[in-house]
């Protein structure tokens, strides 16, 4: 069973469209409302998704892990995680699923830099720094380590256990691939950056804090 997990925080204006796009490729959609103060939950339910709601905002990592746990309880064998801000194109899902279906990978990372996409220069720099921090912390290079669009195969679904609550979870997933010796694949995907998605992204200070936490935790773990 293929389940999509969408962590969402104040995404009432976008969530219905993302659910609609994803529904064509999965059997169930789980939206994790991470303490939104708008009507994200109501919109998600109206669009046919199952909603799990955090009473407080815990961060993207915590919301993703809640969604993964909910999907496990529903019997998911494959989990797709996708951002709620419409930056990803659900039409890329079949390409991301292929390495799992062909039993070539346990985790598939979307790579927003693998094809021609209009990505602001500053975003490229931030993601590059994120990749380098991830390499230092985990010893593994991933072309787009900070992307929220991923597919987890049966082995990863059974074993994954994220502990980091914030955006550091992306690096933690790479660490999990090293720890559990999961096979990875990287698939170029489309990305659409709008003013909305850019405003939703991490600020520089938040990025520095995230990098610091990753390095500190990898050292003191």
């Amino acid at each position, binding site marked *: 069973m293929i389940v999509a997990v969408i962590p969402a925080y104040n995404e009432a204006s976008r969530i219905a469209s993302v659910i609609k796009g994803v529904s064509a490729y999965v059997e169930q959609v789980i939206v994790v409302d991470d303490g939104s103060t708008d009507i994200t939950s109501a919109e998600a339910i109206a669009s046919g998704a199952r909603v799990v709601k955090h009473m407080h905002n815990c961060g993207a990592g915590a919301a993703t892990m809640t969604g993964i746990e909910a999907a496990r309880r529903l019997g998911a064998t494959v989990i797709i995680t996708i951002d709620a801000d419409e930056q990803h194109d659900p039409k890329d899902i079949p390409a991301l699923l292929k390495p799992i279906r062909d039993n070539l990978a346990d985790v598939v990372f979307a790579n927003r830099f693998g094809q021609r996409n209009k990505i602001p220069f500053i975003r490229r720099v931030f993601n590059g720094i994120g990749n380098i921090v991830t390499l230092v*912390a985990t010893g593994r290079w991933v072309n787009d380590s900070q992307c929220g669009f991923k597919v987890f195969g049966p*082995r990863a679904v059974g*074993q994954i256990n994220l502990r980091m*609550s914030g955006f550091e979870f992306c690096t933690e997933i790479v660490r999990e691939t*090293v720890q559990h010796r999961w096979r990875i694949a990287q698939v170029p995907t489309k990305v659409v950056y709008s003013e909305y998605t850019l405003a939703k992204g991490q600020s520089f200070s938040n990025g520095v804090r995230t990098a610091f936490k990753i390095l500190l935790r990898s*050292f003191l773990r």
Partner: protein
Amino acid sequence: MNLTPYQIGVPLLALFVMLYAWNLALRKKKTIWEALLWTFFWSGIAVVAFWPGILGYLSAATGIKDQVNAVLVTCIGILFFMVFYIIIRLEEMGQRQTRTIRSLALRDGDLPDPTHNSHKNSGK
């Protein structure tokens, strides 16, 4: 070579910490990479303690010119290490709170009981 207690104690401490790190790695609580980072860091401390002369080129910049200063700098390093450790502990308390919120969300999410749909290969 006349060794001071400091030159004997610090490399022994470094050896202990490195063995601890590799023990964690063997028990799969640390990755090999993380154990290598620890080994690199503590080896450096042990080497500097054993042969403080190799820091000679840094002495002008840091002011470390003798054993007393080296001990002070090491103590400051240990204090930093302790502060980092407290930060990690605080973070773990935050994680505990997050786990509680997540558990409540899953409980209220009308989901099947995990004991009837368990993932026995989870390894956790």
